[in-house]
């Protein structure tokens, strides 16, 4: 297990460098384009997006809370 952990720590900097490169060359420009695209939308379209994504987000988060509670109920009953 110690060998496995040592190998992991050796590869970590390489993985970090790859992720940094991907972020700088792909993710950041894409995020900037997406942001500009959102800002350029008509007002009512923005509103519809906020409404749909907002409601979805609220349901998603509360569904996660629901799952959490169900898991805790199972822990509580020892299952």
């Amino acid at each position: 297990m110690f060998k496995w952990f040592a190998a992991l720590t050796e590869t970590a900097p390489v993985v970090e460098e790859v992720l940094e490169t991907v972020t700088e060359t792909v993710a950041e420009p894409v995020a900037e384009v997406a942001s500009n695209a959102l800002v350029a939308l008509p007002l009512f379209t923005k509103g519809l997006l906020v409404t749909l994504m907002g409601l979805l987000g609220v349901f998603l988060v509360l569904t996660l809370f629901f799952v959490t509670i169900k898991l805790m109920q199972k822990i509580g009953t020892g299952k």
Partner: protein
Amino acid sequence: MDFVAILKELFSGVLYLATGAGLKTLAMFAIAGILIYLAIRKDYEPALLLPIGFGAILANLPPVIDAVTGVGAASALGEHGFLTVLFNAGIANELFPILIFIGVGAMIDFSPLLKDPSMIFFGAAAQFGIFATFLVSLVLIPIVLPATAGDESLILRLASAIGIIGAADGPTTLYVANHFDLKDYMAPISVAAYSYMSLVPVIQPPVIKALTTKKERMIRMDYNEQRASRLALILFPIIVTAVAGIIVPMSAPLVGSLMFGNLIRECGVLERLSKTAQNELANLVTILLGITIGGTMVAENFLRLDTLLIMALGLFAFVFDTAGGVLFAKFLNLFRKTKINPMVGASGISAFPMSARVIQKIAKEEDPYNFILMQSISANVSGQLGSIVAGGMVITLVSMMLGGIW
């Protein structure tokens, strides 16, 4: 010095009331009087409406001209006035809503929700009105307030704050309004939010009765008496904070403070702190918050068309939040063998515990042996969570639409 000038100076406050601005002052005194009357005589959320009403009186007293700057303002509101100090200390930096939520969290018992977690979805459905009002506001604001036409940023921000009024959650409303730098609109937004919270017993019953049949209102629901495990009650606030903070980071301060208060209550080893949070902290911050909000009700900022629009849209949001919860329950009943009383959906708003009590009262009117209080409380506490998450989502999404500058 001229004797007349001395008299004019001494009685400048009285002479002020005879001016145009003075008449607005008298109008604000009347509005403040109505709030105080509702608080004392009708017992409508007196802890909030009375300080707000009194703060409005203080904010609209005849101005004192500052000898250095030449600017006139009520003495409680000037640059060093105590209401200004309180505003900067607790509202402008969003501290008071956070502290209130610690107290609210210490008061909430999530046991009913942990025993019947399906009620959590009513807390989500009852946020429908927020977003419906947001959309309607986007259309109406530029029409009713032509000065805002073309200013997309202001329209989006104002629509966000107005929509959140529907959640019946004063601290979240203040948090969103302040985040979007809507100081000029803080007065009508906060008064609308807190007034409608106190009017839950008046607003919700007609909406519920319009959307349900007597037979639906008489539906009985089973209830599990066993209390949730102590471990679950301790883990729940911790996990909720982590989940909400990771997925909706902008909701972290409100969720975190609410859950911190709840953890103090449920851990079982901090009874003194729990009692302090539920009583002294909550009461102290309520006093300061109420009077400070009243201090924002200055005539020039309040007696405008904006105020009427915000009050009307706030009421629309409130009604549609109630309707959203009821209709969601009716929708679920299409697929369920054991029916849910649709009124429980209406208590998915954040007005805890008033909404739950209102629902139980209506249920008892229809059937004296129908007890749905605990189910309503489950939905009510989940509404508290739902409104905070909705507030965080609105801040995040609207900020994205504005290019991430808020």
